[in-house]
């Protein structure tokens, strides 16, 4: 039997973690080390080589939204455990631990904001919460962000980062794909735009649903975006994959992205796009 593709968490899609523990503030590309405040000041971009570190959801929002403009929504939505799932550990334990470690309710933060004085909704994922995997809570919150944008007639800026589906929620995690898709359909029916910023990594079920339906879709440099992760694909093809397999640059070349934008250019780009969609 041939190998299967899954939309579940693919840890292999996570940022490179070579053997030995590297401090999260050490640049994996050039080895430069930064203090937390230095990284924050540079929007988590390595000043030496330009490597884009992952950004936490709340950091991303503080950096992107006009100061004081963000109002978080659906703070109370939490993952349930409908299957009483237990592998080597209980799913409820994994959730509790992730909540403790990240200070987040689940792998997404949503709410309303202004960017360069234009109103929008934000839906920003956080890879540090169980690999940014999409379970019912992520699906529900993303869908509510669509609802809010549709209701207010403003664009939704979506910033995915995900290893795939939350397999501990079984088939219900798979159903978050159509759930987010129909929410986007309703958003579009209401005349609002979806602007998507792919960040590293975005793989699995999120790619086959909410991440690839943007009216405009851009990515940060070097971001991995693929449905199947590179290791699954190389196991299938039995070949060495192209160096830049699934990276933003090759996805741009292959017609899947409107632009690859260094973080420094992202805010003015989004401000411009908001002006264009607000003008109507």
């Amino acid at each position, binding site marked *: 039997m041939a190998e299967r593709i899954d939309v579940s968490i693919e840890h292999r899609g996570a940022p490179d973690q070579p053997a030995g523990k590297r401090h999260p503030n050490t640049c994996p590309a050039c080895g430069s080390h930064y203090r937390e405040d230095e990284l924050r000041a540079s929007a988590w971009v390595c000043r030496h080589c330009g490597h884009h570190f992952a950004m936490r959801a709340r950091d991303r929002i503080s950096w992107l939204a006009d100061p004081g403009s963000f109002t978080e929504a659906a703070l109370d939505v939490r993952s*349930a455990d409908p299957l009483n799932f237990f592998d080597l550990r209980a799913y409820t334990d994994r959730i509790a631990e992730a909540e403790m470690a990240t200070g987040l309710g689940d792998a997404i933060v949503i709410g309303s904001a202004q960017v360069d004085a234009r109103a929008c909704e934000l839906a920003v994922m956080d890879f540090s919460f169980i690999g940014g995997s999409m379970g019912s809570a992520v699906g529900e919150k993303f869908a509510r962000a669509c609802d809010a944008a549709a209701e207010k007639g403003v664009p939704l800026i979506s910033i995915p980062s995900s290893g795939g589906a939350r397999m501990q929620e079984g088939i219900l995690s798979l159903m978050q794909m159509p759930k987010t898709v129909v929410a986007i359909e309703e958003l579009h029916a209401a005349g609002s735009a979806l602007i998507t910023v792919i960040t590293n990594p975005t793989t699995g079920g999120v*790619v086959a649903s909410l991440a690839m339906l943007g009216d405009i879709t851009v990515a940060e440099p070097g971001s991995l975006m693929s449905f199947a992760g590179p290791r699954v694909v190389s196991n299938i093809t039995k070949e060495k994959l192209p160096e830049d397999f699934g990276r933003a640059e090759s996805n741009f070349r292959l017609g899947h992205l409107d632009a690859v934008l260094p973080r420094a250019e992202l805010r003015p780009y989004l401000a411009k796009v908001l002006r264009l969609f607000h003008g109507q």
Partner: protein
Amino acid sequence: MASDDELRIRDRLGKLGNLPLLRGVAVSGELKRLQKQLKRLEQEPAPAGDDIWLSVELARHQERPYTLDYVERLMDDWTELHGDRARADDPAIVAGIGRFHGRTVALIGHQKGRDVAERVHRNFGMAHPEGYRKAMRVMELADRFGFPVITLIDTPGAYPGLAAEQHGQGGMIARCQAQMARLRVPTAACVIGEGGSGGAVAFAIADRVYMQEHAIYSVISPEGCAQILWRDGAEARKAAAAMKPDARHCLELGVIDGIVDEPRGGAQLNWDEAAFSLGETLRRGLADVESLGPEERRAARRAKFRSMGVTA
């Protein structure tokens, strides 16, 4: 609009599964179906480890009827349509039009191969983006002519090859779901074997979604789940028991609208009987939503999927 009886039964169905599953779903004339499902949930015990694993094995049984076996038994004047009008005709997906209970419908399904050569040709039912694009073309045609759309789901998953990724596998699956969410015609889907992750869900955004009794529907294969969570692919039985990909649990979780009976021992033992049962369910499923207007039907379909999931 739902009758009081329907709402009451849906409520009980929801409570049984402890789920907010049926919120906002317009229904019509499906009282009997709901009563039957309720009875099933109340009277039959939920399957556990061994029963679930039996379904995993039967769903993958190499004598199980495939999409074209059902087409042969259920459709008149079948006319298979080929090609994505861009670069390929993907044999892992079959699409066409034919007459079903006296009216023209479109049917789209994954197609596995029976012998080794055909299995390779059909790529084990694992589609490339070109296959989903072919499906979308036929859905568009069906919608334009008012042909109801039937989908049969039977795939280990979308093909994870290099070209498939380069040609936008993820985006195509997303757009295929979006297109099904946009259709104005009645739609019915059934998982007839393996409902494997994104490759399966691409065809599952229907007004009525069914599973055959021994079909499975899951976010990841039991082997894949075991590999990641147990770090041992051989723990697939444990993974299956934990993920509950069987029809009974999918019904309980509100993910499907009903279960299609199989011949005793599995569909592989009597293709004609399996086809008859599938055909009756699909016919009734389409009839359930036929009387709704296109907008209402589409809104109900979207509301159903919008409501799926459980949060605390």
